[in-house]
Every structure is written in structure tokens, then in C-alpha cells.
């Protein structure tokens, strides 16, 4: 029977029923800020993995603190702090199999730690010393083929279509993997986000999109980033299930990501996860957040600290005592301090590194310019002009 499209009306109940919108509007949470289990079902996670979650978050926070300090010392050019957001990187990463790939963004050191990249490798990269495999061309981005982590990128959200293309590649090659990409709420305003969701939705690709909604994109609050009721509902239009989780609850992030990865590997297509979190620190070491948000707001959010919350849970459940938690912290604190000392004493990269890796071969223009550059270095030496 002919139906006038302008006459079709859906009730909200219809929509919720049809699209399971409630998952995209509500907040999925397993442990509350006091460390109590609030979910109907507590996930069955082995103790080792719980410990891994904890140490990964602790290590991320300690390293984060060091990167801030190193930036102040002039050893690192820029750092985007992660304090308060560790549960997203760590929970999502540990939910994956080791064959799955991750396309993170600049605020995800937790991804690297949870994947087994050492603090030393991360510090070498951020300091851009002689051991930096990326040879000092960009800051605060990292990637590791060995650990199946793609390099992040400075233009916000540009890695989203790469993740989708990569998943398409895996699908064509018949490799059953999930590809997870993380980005901020600000990134959802850029074209690449919509292009990525659209493409993944059409081809039902095994992609997990994680929005790390830390409430701010530099000084712009999340409500000025979208008119949608939540970010998770954005999946609905692309026929991608969206789920909104408490991003400061590592178990919730883990569980939702695990389910998404299972869907991906079963050929059920993409999932959109909005992880609601809060950026405790400045946007980067170049930012002064007091210009746009109140100290009261930051203070009020402290009770949601993902690490403190998880500690309470571990103690409540009897997995670890307060004493043991302290020992883990102290152990890593000492270790990382040693690693920092080691990394800052490594020599700098060669001065010719700027001419490397532009192409697979060195074309004549770069050869000519390198020659010119070498001459200028000679002259500088003769004139006693400092190179850096």
C-alpha cells in the first residue's frame, strides 16, 4: 500500500524498540565511583587480567607525569596529558586479541602500555633521541608495526578512514581481525568520522570506533561539538549499534569493547562506543585550561578518577590489599624513573635525519639540498654558531 513519506511518524518507543537506542543514550557502568558493582552481571575476568588493567593504568599515569615534567625541562616538545582518561585506552586495548590492530590518537599512551610497548620505547619516541624509530619528524605520535598499532596523526581524526581501509584490507585478505580506532569528541565533527562510519556501515566492516569523550576539545565543550543527545546515537543513522559507557570504569570499557570485537570477528560489522570520561589536565602542555573552565568543575570530577575507583573495587573484592597496591605503584615509580634517566642521556638524532624517509629513494633535489645543508653546517662550525 502506498504510504506518503511525509505522513510516516515514528513514536519514540518505536525508535527505541527498533534501534535499541537506549544503549546509546544511557550509561553502561559496572562499578560505581565507590568501587561497588552496580551492573546486573559482573564480568568474569581472571585475576591476572585485572592486575594487568591496574598496572597498565598506573604505568600510564606515572609515565604521563614524567612526560609533563620532561616537557617543562625542555626534553619533550609537547605532550597531551592522559590523567583521568587511562581507563579508555587500557580497557579498550586489553579487550582485543593480539592480532587485532589499533589506530589510536595522540592522547592514548595507555594503548601502547597495555599492548606491551615499553616505557623506554615511548620515551625514546617522545624525546626524539637517537633511538626514536620515527626519527624525530613529529611529536606525541607513535605506532609500532610489531605491536599492531598504527601511527596516530596530528590532524584530528584523520586516522579514522585509515582504520576503515585497514579493516577493508583484512576483510579482502580473509583475515578475521578487529580494527579499533580511538579519537576525541572533537573528531566527531570532522568529515573523516562520518566518512568512516558510512563506509564501515555499508560494507559491515570489523571496525570498533571509540569516542573518548573527555568533555572538551581544547576549550570547546562537548555540547558545542554536537547537537545530538549523545555521541553514541550517531551510529544509529549509519546502522551501527552505538553504546555509551562510563569511560572511567575500566571494566565497562573492557566489556563493551570485548563485545564489539566479538561482533567484528563474527562478521556482524562495526560498533560505535562512546566512552564518557573527563580530561583532568590541560589539553596539551601548551594549554592553560583555567582560561575556559572552573577549578570547581575539575574538582567535582575527581571523584570519578578511574584508578582510584578501580583500586576500591580490587580491595572490595579482596583481590589486592592497600599495601599491595602501594607496592605495585612504588615498584613502577622507581622503574620508570630509571628508564627516564636512561632515555634522556641517549644522544640526539643525526642532523641529516631531516632528509631521510621522504621517499623510498633520494631524488636529485634532495641530494642537491643535502649538499647545500652540509656546507652550511661546515660554515656554522667554522663561525662557531651553535647548531641547535
Amino acid at each position, binding site marked *: 500500500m502506498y504510504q506518503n513519506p511525509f505522513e510516516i511518524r515514528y513514536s519514540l518507543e518505536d525508535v527505541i524498540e527498533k534501534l535499541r537506542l537506549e544503549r546509546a543514550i544511557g550509561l553502561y557502568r559496572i562499578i560505581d565511583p565507590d568501587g561497588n558493582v552496580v551492573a546486573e552481571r559482573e564480568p568474569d575476568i581472571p585475576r591476572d587480567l585485572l592486575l594487568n588493567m591496574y598496572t597498565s593504568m598506573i604505568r600510564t599515569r606515572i609515565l604521563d607525569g614524567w612526560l609533563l615534567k620532561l616537557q617543562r625541562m625542555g626534553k619533550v616538545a609537547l605532550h597531551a596529558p592522559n590523567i583521568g582518561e587511562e581507563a579508555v585506552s587500557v580497557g579498550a586495548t586489553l579487550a582485543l586479541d593480539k592480532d587485532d590492530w589499533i589506530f589510536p590518537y595522540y592522547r592514548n599512551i595507555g594503548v601502547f602500555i597495555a599492548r606491551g610497548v615499553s616505557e623506554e620505547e615511548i620515551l625514546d619516541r617522545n624525546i626524539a633521541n637517537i633511538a626514536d624509530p620515527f626519527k624525530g619528524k613529529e611529536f606525541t605520535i607513535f605506532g609500532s608495526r610489531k605491536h599492531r598499532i598504527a601511527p596516530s596523526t596530528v590532524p584530528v581524526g584523520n586516522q579514522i578512514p585509515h582504520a576503515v581501509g585497514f579493516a577493508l584490507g583484512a576483510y579482502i585478505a580473509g583475515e578475521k581481525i578487529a580494527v579499533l580506532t580511538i579519537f576525541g569528541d572533537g573528531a566527531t565533527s570532522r568529515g573523516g568520522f562520518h566518512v568512516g562510519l558510512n563506509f564501515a556501515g555499508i560494507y559491515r566492516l570489523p571496525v570498533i570506533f571509540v569516542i573518548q569523550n573527555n568533555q572538551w576539545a581544547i576549550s570547546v565543550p562537548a555540547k558545542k561539538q554536537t547537537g545530538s543527545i549523545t555521541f553514541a546515537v550517531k551510529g544509529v543513522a549509519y546502522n551501527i549499534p552505538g553504546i555509551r559507557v562510563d569511560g572511567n570504569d575500566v571494566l565497562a570499557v573492557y566489556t563493551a569493547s570485548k563485545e564489539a570485537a566479538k561482533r567484528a570477528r563474527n562478521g556482524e560489522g562495526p560498533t560505535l562506543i562512546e566512552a564518557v570520561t573527563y580530561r583532568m589536565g590541560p589539553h596539551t602542555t601548551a594549554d592553560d585550561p583555567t582560561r575556559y573552565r572552573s577549578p570547581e568543575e575539575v574538582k567535582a570530577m575527581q571523584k570519578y578518577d578511574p584508578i582510584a575507583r578501580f583500586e576500591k573495587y580490587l580491595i572490595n573484592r579482596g583481590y589486592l590489599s592497600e599495601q599491595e597496591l602501594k607496592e605495585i605503584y612504588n615498584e613502577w615509580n622507581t622503574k620508570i624513573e630509571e628508564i627516564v634517566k636512561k632515555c634522556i642521556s641517549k644522544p640526539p638524532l643525526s642532523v641529516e635525519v631531516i632528509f631521510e624517509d621522504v621517499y*623510498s629513494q633520494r631524488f636529485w633535489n634532495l641530494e642537491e639540498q643535502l649538499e647545500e645543508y652540509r656546507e652550511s653546517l661546515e660554515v656554522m662550525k667554522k663561525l662557531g654558531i651553535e647548531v641547535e
Partner: protein
Amino acid sequence: MPVMNMVQALNLALREEMRRDPRVIVLGEDVGKRGGVFLVTEGLLEEFGEKRVIDTPLTEMGIVGIAIGLAMYGFKPVAEIQFIDFVYEAFDQIVSEAAKMRAKTGGMFTAPIVIRAPCCGGVKGAMHHSQSPEAYFIHTAGLITMMPSRPYDAKGMLKAAIRSEDPVIFLEPKSIYRTIREEVPEEDYIIPIGKGRVVREGSDVTIVTYGAMVHVSVEAAELAEKKHRWSVEVIDLRTLFPFDKDLILKSLEKTGRLIIVHEAPRTLGLGAEIAAYIAENAIDLLRGPVIRVTGYDAPFPLVHEKLYMPNIARIYLAIEKVMRY
């Protein structure tokens, strides 16, 4: 040897490369069933199937961004942008991501994609189907930019682009897609990246050009020969960056006079770079001013496109000017 036009030669190159290397994947708008709006990808879907010939939604940024992801996975994507005029939405992905992937990761990750697109004017395509934006790409370190001028080259150049480990912008002058036919071998051959070709030998003036302008330049050269017995050498760069500086220098040693012809607007076009290169490195070879015959620094028009583009008269005038200097 079969006689082919450029579309057929490009199609053959794609087909041969897809047969040779299962990693080669074609993607873009309408490249599948339709075979591309200019039919360059005709028949590929039937032979290679939906996993290797992918009709994408209408999104240039997505085509390029997804091609980058495919390349990171290990495939060799050949992305078609339906008209180069629509590439700007994907510009960020090209210059920030594809071009920089190797450099920013110290070679750990690369994005050796090929972006093919019809370009340039001469088909009454108006502003948004006629532009020559090669300078934007040439200016970006990390990209190789190519433009063939005849079917034989088109096949060998596209094969080189597909085998390149660096991202390639492959521009196809659509006005000569079907107007030039010649013998094209049905076997494997490569036109190396960075190598130009002397199209017409001469000893008085060197014209450096590429794409459809090669043919207009040759006609102008013939006119100059007929009228004044001036002997004009015409060089087709084929690869716009890195351009074949040795070929230009060798020719200038003979002629001492340089004209550069391109359809793209003059200011900061490739002609400016070649002129600057000669001024810096070989000024002593010159016996007259370097002259650029180019599109104007105005948007490509719907009307009077023949007047906007370099034509025989304008090139002939340039020859006259440098010869009478």
C-alpha cells in the same frame, strides 16, 4: 601490435598489473559496473570481482583515506578520483597522511597509493572539470606527480606508478583520452619515474611541457620551422616531479633558449620552478629570457577556453620572442 587510445592503454595497464599482483586493488566512484565515467576501469569488475574493484560511496576524502588504510594493510590501491577538480576534500589525506606516512614514522609505515584522475581542459568542461592542480602536489614532499601525453607512455607510466613504493598522483589529460591513437604493446614495459622524453629534436629553442600541451607545442614548433626555419626541440616531462632536469639541461646546452608550456595557472606553477632551477644552476646556458606560456591566473572559464589555454599562437609568439631577443 594493437592500436589503442589512452583510455584503452590505461585499462590494459590496470588489467596487467592486477593480474601480475593480487595486491592491486581499484577503488573509486563508479569504477565497478559502470567501468569509470571515462571507462578506464571497464571490465575490471567482471575479471577481478568485487573485492578488487570497489565501488565506493561518493566521498573523495573517504576514497583516499581508505586507500591509505588498504596500503597500510599491504594492498596496492589504485584510487580513481572521478575528476581531479574534486580532489580538494581529500587534500588533507593526501598531503598530511599519504605524503607524510613514511617520513613521520621513519619508514616503519608507508602509504604507496596511486591516485588516478582525469585533469585539464579542452573538453568544454567549465571550471570544475578542467583544472590543472599539479602544482599543489609537486609542492608536497613525499608525492610523485605524473602526467602522460600519449597511449604508449600512459601504459608504461601507470605501471611504474603502481609499482612505486611512494604515493603517486597520476593525472590524465582527458582531452587526449581518445583523440590520440597509436600502437601499444600488449606486453610488460615500464616508463621509469623521473624520465622525460624528447618528442621532437631541435637546435634553436627548447620547449619543456607535458600532457596535452605536448601536442600543441609540437604544432607550434612545426609552424616556427615552416615560417622561419627555426628548429624547436620539444620535451615531454612525463614525470612532473621529480622532473628530468638532466634532459632539460642537455637540451639547453644545444639550444640556449627555454620556453615552458603548461595549462595550469602561471604563478608558482611548475614553469616557475623550472625557470628558477635553470636560473640558479645554468644561467650561462641561456641566450634569452625564459618564457612561460601557461593558463592565466584566473579560474578556468566555460567560455573562451581555447583562449585561456596555451594555444599554437601563444606558443608561436613565445618562440618568436625568444628568437628575436
